[in-house]
């Protein structure tokens, strides 16, 4: 069981996430023709088993998800989750089309992979840079399904920490919600705090 994070620990996480999302926004804008804005994200931490209580209100809905796994000083997975139809709206806004089909086709899924990849990489990359330890990443993968099934990490479920990052994309006056679920093995915070100590920062402020 994870002890509740201290204010300082949350502050560190928040800053890392802000920086990550900010970098992602910069990267996306560099790449896209339409201007994309990412709102300052809000973050929540909870145990994986509490995910069943459905903090996002997705329920049984089929959501769109870009997933990847990482291994290194600690293991986990990251998933960028969109509520139903939001993903299609985002892709359409990015490519300047009107979404005609309610579900994403394979080509649009590719676009989502790219955008999700940029966002997740930026966030994990920032955290990883702080830890100054290398990660191995899997390739991003687009899937659709019920939230609980998509994020299912296997037997270790109970011991995992979930970092939920809520952010909104605004493209050409259209707003789309996205949620990044970062799932970490136990000991994540300890690893993070140790790394900060290693940098010579007094981390229990």
């Amino acid at each position, binding site marked *: 069981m994870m002890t509740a994070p201290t204010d300082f620990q949350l*502050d560190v996480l928040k800053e890392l996430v802000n920086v990550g999302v900010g970098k992602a926004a910069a990267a996306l804008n560099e790449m896209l023709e339409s201007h994309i804005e990412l709102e300052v994200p809000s973050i929540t931490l909870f145990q994986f088993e509490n995910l069943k209580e459905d903090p996002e209100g997705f329920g049984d809905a089929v959501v769109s998800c870009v997933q990847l796994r990482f291994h290194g000083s600690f293991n986990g997975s990251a998933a960028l989750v969109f509520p139903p139809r939001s993903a299609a709206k985002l892709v359409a806004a990015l490519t300047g089309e009107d979404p005609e089909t309610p579900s994403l086709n394979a080509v649009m899924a590719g676009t989502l992979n790219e955008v999700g990849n940029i966002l997740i990489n930026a966030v994990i990359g920032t955290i990883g840079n702080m830890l100054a330890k290398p990660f191995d990443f899997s390739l991003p993968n687009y899937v659709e399904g019920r939230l609980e099934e998509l994020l299912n990490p296997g037997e270790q479920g109970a011991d995992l920490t979930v970092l939920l990052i809520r952010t909104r994309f605004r493209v050409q006056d259209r707003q789309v919600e996205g949620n990044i679920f970062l799932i970490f093995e136990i000991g994540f915070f300890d690893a993070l705090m140790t790394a900060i100590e290693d940098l010579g920062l007094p981390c229990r402020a």
Partner: protein
Amino acid sequence: MRRILVVDDSVFARLNICNMLKEAGHETAEAANGREALALACSFRPDCILSDLLMPEMDGIGFLNALSERNIRLPVIVLTADIQETKKQQCFDLGAAAFISKPPQKTELLGLLDRILNQEV
């Protein structure tokens, strides 16, 4: 050697930067938002300000505005993760001296600082 005011709503970010500055021998003061920073700009009398953009109560842009309204001429280095041309231009128009991306690398930050401070002299 110099007095630097660090403005950021994240305790961690301020800690990080102040550490770097103190190691280089500078004196530091901290503010969590634009409003606090304005007060310190007068009382602490810094030689240079390092400011984040996204903060509650008064954000970086608001802070830059307030500084120019009060005719406080201090070099401000803007710290942000989201470096976009539009934001950059906006800050420069409001009188920002330079831009640096977060998280700042020690050598990059100190080098930039020296350049800005020496310009002032």
